[in-house]
């Protein structure tokens, strides 16, 4: 039978377990094992810290998502700035060309696959230059052969034009 050491020492029947102070305090102390100092060992200090920590955990869930999104956007912006286009232009341009890369993947490419990322920025610059929009501070991109496919890509809707 799998009983923990405290349970072996104190064979308290289950109906009384909820009222035994050991169990009530253990509920909090289970969560405080990484706290600093006596808050990790003494119930009267741990109770307050643990309740506050739970509140922080709850509050931080939405905040964490926002912060990671912000970080992601910053990274894309910085990587694009090196190639002379704003981050928004990249995301918008890729969307218009029906290249389905979300911000998470763009961020990963910018960090781990910088040359692929550069080629994406070149593609976006080409798309915009075909429309007559020139991004400021941009070097002329490497020649991208498009054959008009950036403006009218082959998607299921216009397949008949290519058959």
């Amino acid at each position, binding site marked *: 039978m799998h009983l923990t050491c405290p349970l072996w020492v104190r064979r308290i029947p289950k109906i009384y377990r909820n009222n035994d102070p050991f169990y009530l305090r253990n509920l909090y102390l289970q*969560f405080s094992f990484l706290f600093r100092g006596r808050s990790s060992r003494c119930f009267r200090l741990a109770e307050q810290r643990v309740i506050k920590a739970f509140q922080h955990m709850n509050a931080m869930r939405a905040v964490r998502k926002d912060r990671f999104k912000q970080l992601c956007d910053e990274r894309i912006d910085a990587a694009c700035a*090196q190639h002379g286009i704003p981050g928004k232009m990249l995301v918008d341009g890729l969307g218009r060309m029906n290249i389905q890369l979300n911000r998470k993947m763009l961020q990963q490419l910018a960090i*781990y*696959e910088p040359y692929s990322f550069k080629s994406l920025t070149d593609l976006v610059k080409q798309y915009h230059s075909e429309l007559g929009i020139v991004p400021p501070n941009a070097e002329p991109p490497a020649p991208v052969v498009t054959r008009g496919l950036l403006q009218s890509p082959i998607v299921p809707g216009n397949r008949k034009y290519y058959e």
Partner: protein
Amino acid sequence: RQMLPRVFLSQPLQNGVSRYTCQLKRITLKFCKFRPNSLGAREFIENGDFLEFARANPQVACYLKPRRNRPPVLQAEFANGSVQLARIDSFPAEFVRRWFWLMRGRSGDDLLPLHENLRSFHPSVQGVWTPFTFGRSVGLGDLSDSRHRPMSPSATELIQQLHRLQSARMS
């Protein structure tokens, strides 16, 4: 961070990189022969799913423990010594079956929140970005704009000062 530390995805001894060994060693199904909350467990056994699991996984020791007046429980023991319990109280037989196969795929490590759902020791094929990847176009401004000034002048600055003094004296 204080309450539940986050961990990186990992396998014991890089299981699966070259060779894969099933980490589940023993699985025990405790159930009651009479009480209604064990119905799913009983059906699981009677339908032959338990035998099917045992035959498909010869590396796992499968045990049945009928225990009177106890709720049904699935106990899985792993190669790293950890024991995981799954309460299957009033579960349908299909759910019990799924728990069995889930335990078969587990490594026995504690279930902790992950930093990321992916992990790779070689995440980059083209080489991780550095400020020098696309030439020295990033992070190299004119150092005279910097607010950090050394205490003593450099050799170049000393020579420049001397030149200025000399040309002032000459003119």
